[in-house]
């Protein structure tokens, strides 16, 4: 069981976390826009998350916290 | 009786800097100021200080910037073409409000010019040199004693007002030997809470910086700095008056030119011409009150300089063009003789400026 949280307001929607995730748990939200005007990254399949922190490793804005 | 030692002008600067607490010197070789570096290279390692020969004048002034930001008394020295290269760093140091001492032992220019003495960096020193709104305290020694005492004064003022003090000397005084004393030197020390020391995780981080992308912030920063400059202008002008009490003519000269001018003033007095001398010791802040007061008494001024006429513009400005101002100058490394200056005084006496 792992938990990934995003500081969504600071996300620029670059998608590097989505690409880095080996389990395909993440996506760029198609139905949301944050305060900065970007569509942010979101968790779409919590069950599959293994807490590897690859997403956070590649996040250029340091907005991801991973718990395991 | 104070102990007196015989020293070369350039060495006097170096020794005075050490006595003022300077333990970091960064420089690059250039004639005619190399004795300063040589003296530092010899002395610094023996007193726990740092002498470092940089790869360029640009690097050396930026090392000075770093050391000043680290809260140390630090200096560099160079001569005219080298000061042009340091202009970038001088601007950053001004914009970051850190204190430094920079020595310019001037030589003839422009370009590579020559290696003989000159005063042709007056504009560069007093009006800018680097980009942006800023000032430097400019001190003009006229003797080996003043090379020492103004160096110490320069460090004190730099720390007091968080800006660069420049010693604007020339090759003649740099090479000249005279007996001097260090016993009257007053070393002031100032707290530097803004310095880069490491936060020790006990305070918010200090940032030394000259970048303000928001125009209103940059404007405020510059205005604050100019408030400080105003205090310098109020408190720090230094000048010498010689035979001015009953003078009808006033010679204005600084540095080595003032020594030639003084001889000419004495010679003119022997001919019955009532002439005196005002010698600005600080070129910025310019001793404008002294000049303006003289303008009400004398019938004219003669600016004696080792250039094509640079300080003359300030003499006109600060006497509010109340009286005519003549120029007696040589340049390119040439020095006017006392006779040449005397001839200018004789002409001025006849109303020819």
């Amino acid at each position, binding site marked *: 069981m792992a938990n990934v949280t995003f500081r969504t307001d600071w996300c620029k*929607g670059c998608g590097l976390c989505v690409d880095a995730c080996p389990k395909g748990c993440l996506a760029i939200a198609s139905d949301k826009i944050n305060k900065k005007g970007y569509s942010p990254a979101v968790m779409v399949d919590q069950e599959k998350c293994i807490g590897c922190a690859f997403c956070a*490793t*590649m996040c250029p804005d340091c907005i991801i916290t991973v718990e395991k | 009786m104070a102990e007196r030692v015989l020293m070369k002008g350039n060495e006097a600067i170096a020794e005075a800097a050490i006595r003022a607490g300077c333990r970091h010197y960064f420089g690059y070789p250039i004639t005619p100021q190399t004795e300063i570096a040589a003296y530092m290279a010899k002395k610094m390692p023996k007193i726990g200080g740092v002498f470092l020969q940089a790869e360029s004048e640009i690097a050396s002034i930026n090392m000075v910037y770093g050391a000043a930001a680290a809260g140390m008394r630090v200096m560099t020295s160079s001569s005219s073409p080298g000061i042009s290269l340091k202009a970038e760093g001088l601007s950053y140091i001004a914009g970051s409000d850190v204190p430094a001492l920079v020595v310019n032992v001037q030589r003839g220019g422009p370009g590579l010019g020559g290696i003989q003495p000159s005063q042709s960096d007056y504009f560069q020193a007093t009006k800018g040199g680097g980009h942006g709104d800023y000032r430097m305290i400019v001190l003009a020694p006229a003797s080996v004693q003043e090379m020492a005492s103004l160096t110490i004064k320069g460090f004190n003022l730099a720390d007091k007002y968080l800006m660069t003090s420049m010693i604007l000397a020339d090759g003649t005084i740099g090479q000249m030997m005279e007996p001097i004393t260090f016993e009257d030197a007053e070393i002031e020390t100032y707290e530097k809470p803004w310095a*880069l020391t490491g936060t020790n995780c006990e305070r918010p981080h200090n940032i030394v910086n000259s970048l303000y992308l928001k125009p209103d912030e940059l404007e405020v920063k510059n205005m604050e700095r100019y408030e400080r400059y105003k205090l310098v202008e109020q408190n720090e002008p230094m000048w010498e008056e010689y035979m001015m009490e009953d003078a009808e003519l006033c010679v204005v000269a600084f540095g080595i030119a003032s020594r030639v001018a003084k001889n000419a003033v004495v010679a003119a007095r022997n001919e019955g011409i009532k002439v005196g001398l005002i010698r600005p010791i600080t070129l910025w802040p310019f001793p404008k009150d002294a000049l303006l007061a003289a303008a009400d008494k004398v019938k004219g001024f003669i600016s004696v300089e080792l250039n094509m006429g640079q300080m003359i513009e300030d003499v006109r400005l600060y006497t509010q063009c109340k009286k005519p101002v003549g120029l007696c100058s040589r340049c390119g490394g040439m020095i006017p003789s006392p006779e040449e200056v005397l001839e200018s005084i004789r002409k001025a006496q006849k109303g020819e400026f």
Partner: protein
Amino acid sequence: MAVVFQKPKSLADIPLHYCPGCPHGIIHRLVAEVLDELGIEGKAIGVAPVGCAVMAYDYFNCDMIEAAHGRAPAVATGIKRCRPENIVFTYQGDGDLASIGMAETVHAAARNENITVIFVNNAIYGMTGGQMAPTSLPGQVTQTSPYGRDVNHCGWPIKVCEMLSTLEGPEFIARVAANNVKNVNQAKKAIKKAFQNQIEGKGFSLVEVVSACPTNWGMTPQQALKWVESDMLPYYPIGVYKDRTAAKEAAK
């Protein structure tokens, strides 16, 4: 559950101004993580460059100074010579370090100045809007090489690590990349070593991080990281170019 990944303490808790997908943020984080892990945040003094990372002074919680373009190694030298007990690092881009500041870089390395240099190479001038850099690849299209970098006209890109490793002076010269998880983790190890070397007084350590500029390369962040792999890394291979201590130990 325990936190296994979070923002390092040495990185300020403010949003970064970089473009979406710009690896500067990753590299900032790596430096901050190393400051945390080595427990040197309180002793560290950082020197920011002129370029995209100009405002790095706001992002690191240690004492910071902003240098003139290219002069960071000289500024760092001035600080380190005054405060040898502090940990002094520069963070510079390719225009800053390899073009206008090349003299400062080479001589700081030659003096084996005991500082740490983080050199971010993204083969373009980002801050000014995408001009040709000293590290732009042959044929690379930029605003000032609109027909592709013509090496016959404006010369060849400079391989900083290869060049500096010919000097006797420096302790440690390595090239890493910030284009995937494996390389980012490897980059952190090199950055940590570069700081560790300074703590141990070994001298000048430079880590070149091959990075990307999606905005000025005209690519998506994903395409940009792929281009790092396909085009940048063959020209700028990852590796340790000089490690004096390791070489000495190997020679024993």
